């Protein structure tokens, strides 16, 4: 829809605006705009400027190290990498089905992870924009202001996040770097004491999750026309799906639908993903651009994550989240919802589903079982796929006879959304920035569109003083016309 803004026909005389890095996303991304003399947008791109080399990090390691090792790829979703790797390694040790207890413990951990991740994104990273407006002063548009002006909402956000972290800690035994999932199963059983500890607060967690679904629904619908068109564009959608068509975030087949909701493929065994998905490399970004083979590079890109999962699923298996999905469907009017900001609404419906599922798992007698590990016959290859908070996550390993990983391929959730985030940037640039004098508030519109996808662009390095924001306006002759900087501590200077 906005492909014409990917590459300007004659870039030489254009002004260049850079947002570097994009804020309130994980890692290091950069947006560049090329503008003509009248500030008309001619090119808009989201670049990923750090090369992570995940595969090289993994190759040469013994396969049994991987579930622990890959947690260090990312400080935000270590559990997702942990479980995707564990699922791939299950196949390498010849295990296709875990014991009921092991699978439910993994699910419990995964739902805890998704709950805390979604809570963080909504309360910390998104409510400042949604509650105060995209053009609110940058110094005010943050979580501390939310805590000050909406203390009840802010406190519940912090406690939801904490509860999800506690679920992870209790299942894995550690807050980070846990070894909960091991080849063929789980490392430790849940005690009755652990279960009761988590059950103590689950009623509040579900109630607060319901409140936040209602909050985002009202926020979205309070300015429905604007939110519907902000960063909106038609796309394909990809996600895992349960056998019966229910929303599924731990294990299922792959389903892809087009922008009209027509099924492109369904219940595909994800071990065959290379037959359905390819990745394209573009010279201006380190992040690849995946696409559906059948549709080709130009038309085959897709979206993943909460919006894709809600658009793709036939129902949600927990009642409160299913009721919330019905309201979401009603808004969509029978068509897939395309608005980028609808990611927030979909994300909170999933948050509620996670809370309900955690409760159900804790009441399931299998959760306290002691039968944790299955053994099988060694295989040379494994593919693990999971729905991480941000979308479908692929881990694919090949292992030699000495148990050393010889090949690794990862398609992380954010990579799957690469083209979509670029489309969102172009849609917003074309609609709100074209021909305007650029301000920090207007440029924040671009970041709001990117943040809707909750991208995780890098790993967990966060050494002090490394996160400035710099906007530069350069004239046609290459001379610096204007510069706006925001330091790592938030001071803005011109």
């Amino acid at each position, binding site marked *: 829809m906005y492909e014409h803004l990917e590459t300007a026909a004659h870039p030489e005389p254009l002004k260049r605006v850079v947002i570097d890095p994009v*804020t309130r*996303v994980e890692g290091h991304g950069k947006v560049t705009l090329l503008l003509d003399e009248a500030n008309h947008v001619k090119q808009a791109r989201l670049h990923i400027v750090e090369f992570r080399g995940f595969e090289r990090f993994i190759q040469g390691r013994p396969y049994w190290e991987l579930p622990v090792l890959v947690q260090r790829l990312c400080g935000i979703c270590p559990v997702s990498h942990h479980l995707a790797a564990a699922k791939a390694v299950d196949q390498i040790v010849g295990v296709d089905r875990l014991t009921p207890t092991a699978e439910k413990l993994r699910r419990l951990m995964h739902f805890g992870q998704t709950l805390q991740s979604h809570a963080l994104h909504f*309360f910390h990273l998104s409510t400042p924009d949604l509650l105060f407006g995209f053009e609110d002063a940058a110094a005010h548009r943050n*979580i*501390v202001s939310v805590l000050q002006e909406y203390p009840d909402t802010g406190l519940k956000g912090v406690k939801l996040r904490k509860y999800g972290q506690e679920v992870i800690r209790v299942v894995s035994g550690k807050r980070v770097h846990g070894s909960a999932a091991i080849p063929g199963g789980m490392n430790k059983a849940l005690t009755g004491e652990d279960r009761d500890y988590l059950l103590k607060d689950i009623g509040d967690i579900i109630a607060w999750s319901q409140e936040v679904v209602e909050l985002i629904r009202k926020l979205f619908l309070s300015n429905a026309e604007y939110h519907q068109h902000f960063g909106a564009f038609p796309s394909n959608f990809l996600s895992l799906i349960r056998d019966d068509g229910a929303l599924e975030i731990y294990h299922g087949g792959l389903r892809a639908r087009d922008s009209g909701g027509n099924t492109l493929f369904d219940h595909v065994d994800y071990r065959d993903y290379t037959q359905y998905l390819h990745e394209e490399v573009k010279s201006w970004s380190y992040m690849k651009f995946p696409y559906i083979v059948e549709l080709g590079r130009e038309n085959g890109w897709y979206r993943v994550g909460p919006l894709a999962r809600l658009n793709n699923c036939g129902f949600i298996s927990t009642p409160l989240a299913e009721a919330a999905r019905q309201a979401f469907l009603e808004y969509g009017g029978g068509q897939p919802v395309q608005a980028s900001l609808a990611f927030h609404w979909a994300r909170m419906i999933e948050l509620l589903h996670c809370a309900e599922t955690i409760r159900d798992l804790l009441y399931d007698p299998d959760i306290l079982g002691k039968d944790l590990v299955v053994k099988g016959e060694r295989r040379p290859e494994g593919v693990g796929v999971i729905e991480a908070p941000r979308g479908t996550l692929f881990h694919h390993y090949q292992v030699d006879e000495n148990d050393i990983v010889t090949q690794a391929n990862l398609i992380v959730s954010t990579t799957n959304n690469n083209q979509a985030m670029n489309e969102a940037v172009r849609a917003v640039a074309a609609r709100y920035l074209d021909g305007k004098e650029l301000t920090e508030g207007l440029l924040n519109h671009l970041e709001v569109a990117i943040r809707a996808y909750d991208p995780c662009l890098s790993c*967990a390095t*966060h050494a*002090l003083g490394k996160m400035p924001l710099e906007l530069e306006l350069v004239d046609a002759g290459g001379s610096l016309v204007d510069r706006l900087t925001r330091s790592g*501590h*938030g001071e803005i200077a011109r």
Partner: protein
Amino acid sequence: MGSPRILVFGYGNPSRGDDGLAPALLDLLDGNGCDCLTDFQLQVEHALDLKDRELVLFVDASVSCPTPFQLARLAPARDPSYTTHAVSPSAVLEVYRRLHGEQPPPCYLLSIRGDRFELGEGLSPAALVRLEQAQDLIARLLAEPCAAAWDEVTGETAVA
């Protein structure tokens, strides 16, 4: 068994070179004289970990602090950067203040100088030396666990 009243909170990624300084330091401490927590990075919910503490020491790698390290007293700050999914220690203190309606306990940040932060790397040789020096400093702090004594040390570490 460590004292739950004194919290040492180290954050960083052990697989990103010198970013692993704080987790490595906490491994060496092993709860000796304090309660130890570690995470990849700081987040808002860590404000809840500060409740009922007498003293808190955050530990992090830094690309810009003096070599080998620097100890600084922290104050709650309305830190408007919030640039990523991570927040600064001062911002965590501000979140504490907002959540609990009271001042946080005395909190300090030990920044240890790091040089290399590449994925898959271990600690650099220089960082290993600084790690030992930081361990000595923490032993000294824990031997006299009161804000007045720690305040005295903050003045020394810029040129340590």
